[in-house]
């Protein structure tokens, strides 16, 4: 028992971050980072989506309510959308959900949005590093989305 406790205490806190990445840019950017052997923290759980326009704000909410410590959403730079305007449509939703969640007291850094192209493997790694650092500073998701009485996790 004692030993296990010592071990958990020494273990660095590693946040769990749900990352919604557009297939055509950021996902390929993550791939490029991998191919180029660029190191970044293993904190993200990647969910590939066909377009940032496909990211339903409910995904972000559901991830938080299910106990994720952070969410990263990344799509193509404005003007570069594979489907021409998906990220423009997404941009309004992203701006609004971020502002709304900050208003109810969710820490600014829990939810991050970025544009990363397929050519920006290095930048993708930097974004993940930055996000991981900031979420680690915040610690576990114990604020407005803290699961109380019962829990929101699916059985």
């Amino acid at each position, binding site marked *: 028992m004692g030993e296990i406790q010592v071990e958990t205490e020494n273990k660095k806190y590693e946040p769990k971050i749900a990352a919604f990445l557009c297939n055509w840019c950021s996902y390929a950017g993550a791939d490029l980072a991998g191919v180029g052997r660029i190191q970044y923290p293993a904190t993200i759980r990647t969910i590939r989506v066909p377009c940032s326009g496909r990211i339903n704000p409910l995904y972000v909410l559901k991830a938080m309510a299910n106990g994720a410590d952070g969410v990263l959403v990344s799509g193509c730079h404005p003007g570069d959308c594979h489907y021409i305007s998906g990220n423009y449509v997404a941009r309004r939703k992203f701006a609004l959900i971020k502002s709304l969640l900050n*208003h109810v007291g969710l820490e*600014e850094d829990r939810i991050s949005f970025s544009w990363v192209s397929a050519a920006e493997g290095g930048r993708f790694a930097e974004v993940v590093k930055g996000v991981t650092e900031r979420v680690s500073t915040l610690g576990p998701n114990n604020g407005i989305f803290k699961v109380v009485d019962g829990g*929101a996790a699916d059985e």
Partner: protein
Amino acid sequence: MSKIINDIRETARQLLAEGKVDVVIGYEKGSLPLKATPCFVHSSEGVDSLIWDETCENNLATYAAKTPGKKAIVAKGCDSRALAVLLQENQLVRDDLYIIGVSCHGVIDQRRIGAEVGEILEASISDGKISVKGMEGDKEYLFTEVKDATCRTCRYPNPVMEDLHIGDTIEVAQGAAAFADVEALENKSDNERQEYFKEQMSKCIRCYACRNACPLCYCQECFVDCNSPRWLTGGVNRAENLLFQAGRVMHLAGRCVDCGACSRACPQGVDIRALNRKMTKDVYVMYNHESGISEEGKPALNEYSANDPEQFLVKE
């Protein structure tokens, strides 16, 4: 009987007698004091149950799309705005709709009265005064003291579209929308806001009365009822309540007309409006958009511009 009520009844009688509409949607006296209830009049004999006063708090646009046939509808400013959004979203056919516009001075916030006198047993309204007999005492109010919060900041008391106007119109100061209520919250610290909304979210019992009262929550299958994916589990807890509330507010982004029907319908007194108003402000400030102010136009999230603000992006 006021002139307005008389005119509403006469209009309804004529429309029904001439066969111009199949049904008139208006208000009648409810079974509880200070609560009117929506009423559907199908024949000219029924028109005498129609009323109009400060208790007509439902947004009747909620029933417009659900009622088949040609319909006339009594509409305040906010009801007409909701109808405008429904038209923008192709949920209604303009030719099937006859809008009886009435300018509105606001509706009563029952919760405010109930908090002082307990359950309301009897009440009467005359000349802008409301006398209430409650479980825990009697009291007389000026209407202005118990006017609903949403009506205090209303920018569109006159219907934005109508086929006929009844009564006077109300002078409103034109100018930019003001959001003092939202700013007051914004100026608090993150922690204070979090505490406030934690308390609000703990109160919600997810009865969905707010959704049902809302004219713009017309989805055949709401995300809360969806089994696959299952957004919400059966349990009621704060995190899930926030998922519901924030999800709903997102669905109403650039659509909510701030009629307050959701807040008034809530049995738990959850401050739903604080969320809706924040969203309304953001949409107004970021996209210079106000929902439902004319039949033309589109909801804010159906449009975009190449220069939309990007402050939300991650710091690098």
